[in-house]
């Protein structure tokens, strides 16, 4: 655990905390982006280039923009005075803990799946990731692609429905 790790961890945790405690929804979204960036830098610090860059590209470049667009296009950024805290926070906590447990279990179990260098650290290049995605994991990749296509067609249908009603 190096010095850099503590700085990045502090940034990430602070961003995540700000995202759930700030009042203004757009501020929350921007704070969440800070948490995303901190996570990406943590990946990079662990020498996982592909994961880090993909995190920036997908989460900061696309998801954060989508979030702010959704906020602006629906209710506006003005939040009610009595706060935005949900009363179902306990069930949220249980679901988050469950998701974390499953992910942690998967990560611990996958220790043998990656090639390791002489000092025990995994040595995975972008080329390896590409090869794995196109050979061993090609079925999950295609399923994800199908799911995303279905979601996109659904979004287009929702948008088209509105147009037909007008006529």
């Amino acid at each position: 655990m190096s010095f850099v790790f503590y700085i990045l961890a502090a940034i990430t945790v602070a961003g995540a905390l700000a995202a759930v405690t700030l009042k203004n929804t757009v501020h929350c979204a921007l704070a969440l982006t800070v948490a995303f960036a901190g996570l990406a830098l943590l990946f990079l610090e662990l020498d996982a280039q592909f994961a880090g860059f993909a995190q920036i590209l997908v989460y900061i470049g696309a998801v954060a923009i989508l979030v702010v667009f959704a906020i602006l296009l629906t209710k506006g950024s003005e939040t009610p005075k009595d706060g935005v805290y949900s009363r179902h926070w306990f069930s949220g906590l249980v679901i988050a803990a469950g998701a974390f447990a499953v992910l942690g279990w998967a990560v611990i179990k996958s220790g043998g799946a990656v090639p390791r260098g002489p000092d025990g650290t995994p040595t995975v290049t972008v080329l390896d990731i590409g090869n794995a995605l196109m050979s061993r994991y090609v079925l999950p990749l295609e399923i994800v692609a199908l799911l995303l296509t279905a979601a996109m067609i659904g979004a287009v249908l929702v948008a088209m429905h509105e147009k037909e009603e007008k006529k």
Partner: protein
Amino acid sequence: MTERMDQIFVLLRQWLVGFLPEAWQAAAGVVLSVAAIVCLFPALFALTTVFERKGLARIQNRIGPNRVGPFGFFQPVADGIKSLTKEDIVPISADGVVHFLAPVVLVVAVFMGFAVLPMGRNMVLVDADAGLLFFFAVGASTELSVFMAGWSSRNKYSLLGAMRAVAQMISYEVPLLLSSVAVVMIAGSLSLTKIVEAQNHYTWGLPHWYIFTPWGLAGFLMFAIAATSETNRSPFDLPEGESELVAGYHTEYSGFKFALFFLGEYLAMFSISGLGTTLFLGGWSAPFSWLGWVPSWIWFFSKVMLSIFVFIWLRGTLPRLRQDQLMNFAWKFVLPLTLTNLMAAAAWRFLGDGWERWVVCSAVLALAYAGLGWAEMRRGHFGPRSYRYAE
């Protein structure tokens, strides 16, 4: 001698770093390279503003700036002093922190793109394994700063400009990425240095740049269109269309913060030109094998400045697009063509070295271009505007 001129900046850095103790040398080398990038590109920006104003004036039959210094070449110095001494006005209802952070985030994100560009032989700050991915990742985060600027100003023109800018940047990022993917497929690497090396071969004195292949030419043209749009340059400068939105997302910025936005726009132009040069125009390699004695960095910067010249030329020549035309063009014309181009690149890869691949790829791309254009014109998508939300 030619070898030494080629590597002059690398040698200079080694020599300067040599004065320091062993333990500091690696860090000092990085700091020196970063300082060079941070000094060089703003200097180029200052030069380019004069160049652009002069060029536009020439296109419009005017004289252009000619008062400060010889031929007006010290105009950027005067402009810089002006923007530093101007009052920094923040609207009373603006969101102070976000309003302040937006230009900073923009300039930082744009500067980071230069880290992976190979500007000459052995002249790259970070030779990342996934350099191209890094470039697009930091490029995508500029969208957020544009949104921050527009939203935090609490001004309808700012917000409209920001929404337009973000919608435009997202739409054109898809063709930008997909036209680059064709290069990655052929070069077999995401590392920008490897992509340059893959193009640095010569047959009969002529280079193997990707622009000289059917898929490369098509890819380069689409990359150039998407890059113009990504940098919000004319004819895609709707986000700051002054006749309708005052100045778009930076309406409420004055003084040095406005200068930072201006700097960010030009730096984005330099970095996207550098990427286009690296991907399609052979990066730092010479255009003819007998010109190999000219230092590699001269070629890189010549190609970048040539692209900047084309940007200025387009700005002086083309009228601005309309919002619906912009979106139709991105999603219904450029995107299908980039997808066809991916198929053409795959065919190029697997058809072997003969003449067949030239015929097949050219035919596929020409047919796709003609067919798409014909179909779109027939359906009238490029015709009069249909008002959907403003009836």
